[in-house]
């Protein structure tokens, strides 16, 4: 199952979990009403202490087809809602089930297959295998850089995963660099400050450029700033923050949360203190007017 198929399966499981709480609901995502959406949001808040916006559900769950996979943290929340620990467990378990079904098909196909043909296929594979075994593995170092500034990104701002048959394996980032065992690996770069990027590493690849998510970087700059330029910060915040903004600050170990509205959050960034500098943006959402409507922050 590829990621899109997995997400479609997750959508089915979300509806099943929803039905466990509201047994009278017998429809599908197409007729999932605004009342159902509100009830789903409430369920997620009470059961998982997580917050999901109405807009997110309209964008990612209501449509029959999805062009883009949602952010990983949202997939984690809904995988939890469907009874799994996170998206990784969900993908792993579903692919496990699928791979158990594959051998049956293979046995049926085998009968039809000509034994001589097997021989012809096996020999080149064997030769290739021996060749690869003898060949020393090429390890490769790749530097991750900001596409705009051309400077290396900060190590704690970015997460890198090796992608292998729908499995995501974390790759350690040291001084903005990653070390890969194979020079032809596919990697996924995730960060609240940069756009998500999937790269098939080639032999010549020594640098990867990631494009900044403008708003997240602007807010980060504001968090780290001092009192100077407070008026320009105030003006900029007035423009980029939606009137309906909801900010959730997760306390240490996610043991609680603080909720701020636009005025309170803007105040914090206009006059930053040493407490403001302990905030780390996890993710944000924007509306069709390119205003920020939701920010999730971790208190360090």
């Amino acid at each position, binding site marked *: 199952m590829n990621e899109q198929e997995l997400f479609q399966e997750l959508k089915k499981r979300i509806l099943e979990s929803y039905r466990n709480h509201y047994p009278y609901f017998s429809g599908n995502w197409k007729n999932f009403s605004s009342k159902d959406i509100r009830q789903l949001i409430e369920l997620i808040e009470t059961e998982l202490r997580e917050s999901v916006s109405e807009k997110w559900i309209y964008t990612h769950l209501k449509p029959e087809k999805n062009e883009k996979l949602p952010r990983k943290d949202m997939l984690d929340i809904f995988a939890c809602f469907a009874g799994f620990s996170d998206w990784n467990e969900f993908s792993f378990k579903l692919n496990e089930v699928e791979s158990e079904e594959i051998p049956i098909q293979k046995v049926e196909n085998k009968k039809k297959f000509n034994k001589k043909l097997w021989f012809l296929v096996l020999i080149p594979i064997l030769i290739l295998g021996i060749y690869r075994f003898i060949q020393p593995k090429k390890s490769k170092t790749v530097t991750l850089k900001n596409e705009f500034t051309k400077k290396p990104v900060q190590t704690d701002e970015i997460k890198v995963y090796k992608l292998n048959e729908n499995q995501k394996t974390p790759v350690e980032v040291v001084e903005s660099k990653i070390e890969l065992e194979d020079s032809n690996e596919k990697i996924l770069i995730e960060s609240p400050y940069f756009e998500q990027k999937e790269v098939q590493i080639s032999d010549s690849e020594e640098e990867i450029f990631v494009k900044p998510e403008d708003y997240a970087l602007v807010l980060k700059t504001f968090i780290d700033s001092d*009192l100077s330029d*407070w008026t320009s910060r105030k003006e900029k915040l007035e423009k980029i923050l939606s009137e309906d903004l909801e900010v959730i600050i997760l306390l240490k170990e996610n*043991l*609680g949360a603080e909720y701020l*509205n636009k005025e309170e959050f803007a*105040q914090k960034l206009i*006059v930053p203190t040493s407490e403001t500098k*302990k905030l780390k943006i996890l993710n944000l959402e924007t509306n069709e007017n390119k205003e920020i409507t939701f920010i999730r922050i971790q208190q360090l």
Partner: protein
Amino acid sequence: MNWKKINMAILISVSSIVCAQNIEASPQGIKANFSEKSILAYQENSQHKIAEFYEYLTLYSNEKNPELRKQIQSNILSMVSSKEIEVLDFTDSATNLIDLSELLEKIKNQDYKFEIDEMESSENISLYEWENSYQLKISKGENFQIRSISQCIIFEPLEKKFGKKSKLVWEMKLDEMFED
């Protein structure tokens, strides 16, 4: 007439029973809504808030730009339960309680510096509040005084506005203080 009175009496007693059930149905107070670990996390957060409150007071007292001072003042007032809460008069060594707005007027342009130390939260938690106690060093130039202060923290559910939407959230505010 008598029937009217009897009907009214029945109506009042039925509605009082219904009201009582509603109150019992939703758990009340901090302890009924949060685990021990969560309460500790919120108490730690309240200590950060007090630290931030005094950082703002220092900025306010030292800021010469009236516009920025006004902005800092609005940050300070957004942290407390009311701008009329009683706080210690830090400009006087005697234990006098004054309104927060009065204190702000007294420390304006006076270059006071406030530093806190040895902060802890009480184990005793009331329905919607607890106390934080701490040592406060108040300096002006080379002179300083250290005061032992206890301050109430209010933590209660309230309907909060997020633009056009509103949502029931637990909100934390700093409340009145007194000298130990």
